[in-house]
């Protein structure tokens, strides 16, 4: 415990990819330099993702006897001021986001001058969260196996190897109700049971970290923030099914995740927690990291296997399922990162504890990356069964700048867009599927009135079309023709018959494609047709884009009443379509204008109007 609660100041900086993108490394350097300059003795560490992306860079300061406070939106300047204040024995209130209560009594009191700072559990962003997969994320140094162990890490594995049979582990997971968090939702215990009964040798367990949904970063964050939880989960899974080797398949676009999981594997080997005779139990287990070459379809389990084998990343028909005939033709289990991170928690705390979280049939928690046009963005973990409303309006705090949220897209590019009137839906596998979307791996993109739903459908189809492997006819050709029709619609060239054809294509591509990619690719089209048909009608019948997004259907004009003639738009216009004298209203030549909206975005007076 003294590692986590030392008798000297401990400062941790959120330095997963999200934090780094916000400038966490400069903040970290500033903290280090200032502390050195002042001779201020402290433990300064990089941690993974603290979750509240909106507020990055985040700095978590724990002063013995004073308390623990999370500081948000730090800059090098603010970091230096923070160190100055701390060195005088003070926890400053400036930029404090929340105070974090701790188990150890030293830091339980909240200093008086911080009374206005809310507890972290009082922040709307955190109130409804329940962190299991992300239990250590943002709290520990991801490189430190000691810190992982100090937070009850490896208790599950020692219990597994010393006290449980492989059947006990499978029973425990089955009773917990854990379902595949990659999106399929297949009961994990059942899958392990099938593989465990197979006689083929050797068996393999694969961690699927080929996360490729635009706007989704759950798996990356877990690997970056708490790699040992995944390694422990895989080792338990290996023991349960009788596998002695595992693979982590992670996309090459995640360099930090790859570095951290590799270092964690090496460290676990050093500590005897991977390799031969783990805990002296006679169980051997090793893990290799395989990097994906950037194909979205390799997240599909049979394509993933082909890719590890060195073949072309394309799916093959199932059955046979990998649990019977997988990697190198041997029984293989493929689990998502979050599933494996949950396993270690379940075995350590028990199936009953886990099954009491969430709802019946949908137990436990699910991790979402909440992004898009929502006030609070970030990585959130909530019990299953929370409603979309609680997620978007509670945790997300509603639309950006008070705008009305119109829809939410769950499940990545193959998910569906659900309208605000369905926000009372509980987040669970069945409810989302029934509404035409999917749980998916955990992407959640919020859209507001400025989002054109036809354009959104086209965007996602463009993605799936480009990522289709091209093996089966409906997915390869069908996504392309759907994309062509959607392009005609956003360009105002479509006829009502086009929409009929679009719907037919969507239904049949879904019905007849070979793998999950093609079977789900039409979801954005089908759900937008179902819930936002009026927007399609406006594009086709009135040649109008209600959200003012589709370039061919909008016009930009300058309101002479509001224009102060500053000339900024004229200078920024890439095609020279704007003219006007200084301090007099400017004018856009509609013949030259390409509707790029640059003028709209730069005008300080809001004088550029979009005519829809």
């Amino acid at each position, binding site marked *: 415990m003294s590692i986590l609660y030392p008798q000297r100041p401990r400062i941790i900086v959120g330095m997963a990819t999200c934090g780094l993108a916000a400038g966490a490394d400069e903040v970290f350097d500033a903290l280090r330099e200032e502390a050195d300059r002042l001779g201020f003795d402290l433990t300064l560490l990089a941690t993974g993702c603290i979750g509240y992306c909106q507020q990055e860079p985040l700095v978590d300061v724990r002063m013995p006897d004073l308390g623990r406070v999370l500081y948000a939106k730090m800059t090098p300047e603010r970091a230096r001021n923070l160190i100055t204040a701390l060195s005088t024995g003070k926890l400053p209130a400036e930029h404090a986001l929340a105070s974090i209560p701790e188990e150890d009594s030293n830091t339980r009191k909240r200093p008086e001058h911080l009374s206005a700072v809310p507890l972290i559990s009082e922040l709307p962003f955190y109130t409804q969260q329940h962190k299991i997969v992300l239990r250590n994320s943002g709290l520990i140094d991801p490189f430190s196996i000691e810190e992982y162990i100090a937070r009850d890490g490896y208790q599950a594995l020692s219990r597994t190897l010393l006290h449980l049979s492989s059947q006990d582990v499978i029973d425990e997971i089955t009773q917990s109700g854990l379902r595949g968090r990659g999106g399929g939702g297949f009961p994990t215990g059942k899958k392990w049971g099938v593989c465990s009964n197979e006689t083929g040798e050797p068996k393999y367990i694969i961690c699927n970290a080929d996360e490729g949904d635009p706007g989704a970063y759950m798996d990356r964050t877990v690997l970056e923030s708490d790699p040992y939880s995944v390694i422990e989960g895989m080792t338990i899974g290996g023991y349960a099914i009788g596998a002695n080797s595992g693979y982590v398949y992670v996309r090459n676009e995640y360099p930090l995740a790859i570095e951290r999981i590799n270092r964690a594997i090496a460290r676990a080997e050093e500590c005897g927690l991977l390799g031969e005779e783990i805990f002296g139990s006679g169980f051997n287990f090793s893990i290799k990291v395989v990097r994906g070459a950037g*194909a979205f*379809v390799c997240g599909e389990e049979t394509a993933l296997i082909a890719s590890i084998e060195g073949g*072309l990343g*394309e799916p*093959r*028909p199932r*059955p046979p399922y990998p649990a019977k005939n997988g990697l190198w033709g041997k029984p293989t289990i493929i689990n998502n990162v979050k599933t494996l991170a949950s396993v270690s928690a379940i075995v350590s705390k028990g199936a009953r504890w886990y099954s009491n979280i969430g709802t019946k049939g949908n137990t436990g928690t699910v991790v979402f990356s909440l992004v898009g046009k929502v006030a609070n963005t970030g990585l959130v973990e909530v019990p299953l069964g929370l409603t979309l409303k609680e997620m978007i309006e509670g945790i997300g705090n509603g639309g950006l700048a008070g705008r009305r949220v119109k829809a939410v897209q769950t499940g990545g590019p193959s998910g569906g867009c659900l309208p605000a009137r369905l926000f009372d839906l509980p987040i669970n596998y069945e409810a989302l599927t029934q509404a035409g979307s999917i749980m998916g791996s955990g992407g959640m993109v919020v859209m507001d009135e400025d989002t054109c739903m036809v354009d959104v459908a086209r965007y996602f189809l463009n993605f799936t*079309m*480009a*990522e*289709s*492997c*091209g*093996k*089966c*006819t*409906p997915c*390869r*050709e*069908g*996504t*392309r*023709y759907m994309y*062509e029709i959607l392009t005609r619609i956003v360009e105002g060239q479509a006829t009502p018959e086009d929409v009929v*054809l679009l719907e*037919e*294509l969507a239904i*049949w591509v879904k*019905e*007849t*494609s*070979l793998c999950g990619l093609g079977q789900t690719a039409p979801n954005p089209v089908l759900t937008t047709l179902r819930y936002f048909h009026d927007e399609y009608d406006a594009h086709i019948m009135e040649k109008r884009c209600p959200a003012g997004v589709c370039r061919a259907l909008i016009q930009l004009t300058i309101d002479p009443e509001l224009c102060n003639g500053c000339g900024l738009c004229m200078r920024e216009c890439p095609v020279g379509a704007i003219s006007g004298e200084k301090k007099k209203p400017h004018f856009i030549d509609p013949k030259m204008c390409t509707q790029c909206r640059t003028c709209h975005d730069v005008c300080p007076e809001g004088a550029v109007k979009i005519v829809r």
Partner: protein
Amino acid sequence: MVTLTINGKTVSVPQGTMLLKAVQEAGIDLPTLCYHDALSPYGACRLCMVTITAPHHAIVASCVYPVEEGLAVETDTEPAIRARRLALEFLMSRCPTSDVIRKMAENEGITSSRFGVPSPEQMDELCVLCGLCVRVCRDVIGAAAISFIGRGTDRKVGTPFELQSDSCIGCGACAEICPTGAIRIEDQGNKRILHTWNTTVKLSACPECGRFFTPKPTLFLKDIFPEVEDYWDLCPACKQHKTTRQWLNAGSKEGL
């Protein structure tokens, strides 16, 4: 044996048979392009779609669906017909000049596709990406000279970097198995030109008649089948000649 019902008719086939074979055995014609008896099922063209009505309800590609006891299958339900027609429409748009596709489509009751206007270069396109050539080259011949390149609509078949292949033995199995005649191979003097693969292999001449007839890279087969050594060098005509002469000689010795 596994017993199932196809269009109301009871059929028994060995365990492990794919549904497509069972349907064909029942005397029912289904369109297919990517299936071949010599290769493992692939499930790419999605032409052989049928409806399963029991024990559960689903539309499946019959070439990759293993038969199960008690399975009930209907080949001509509306959904199955629509699925097959749509796949054929896609392929008609892809290969507008292919007679094979056009005939298959006519059999399923369609004469034109509703999708896309073919570009000039598409008028020469005959490849439906069924993968038979890639698979026969890799799984039967063992040369693996060609593979898929690119993904999605950019997918095509070719040699590495679409350059002259050192692995190609010029056997021509790819062209032989291609259902749409998309692979062009031509023998010119002492060369075999595999136009589609940008590859040329040398032909070996028959020592008897001097005619060029077999790709030199296939002569390694001599080492694999030494018992028929005499015959590898000869062209089919001379081989036949020689065999006939041997029989005649043997016959005359025995006084026939």
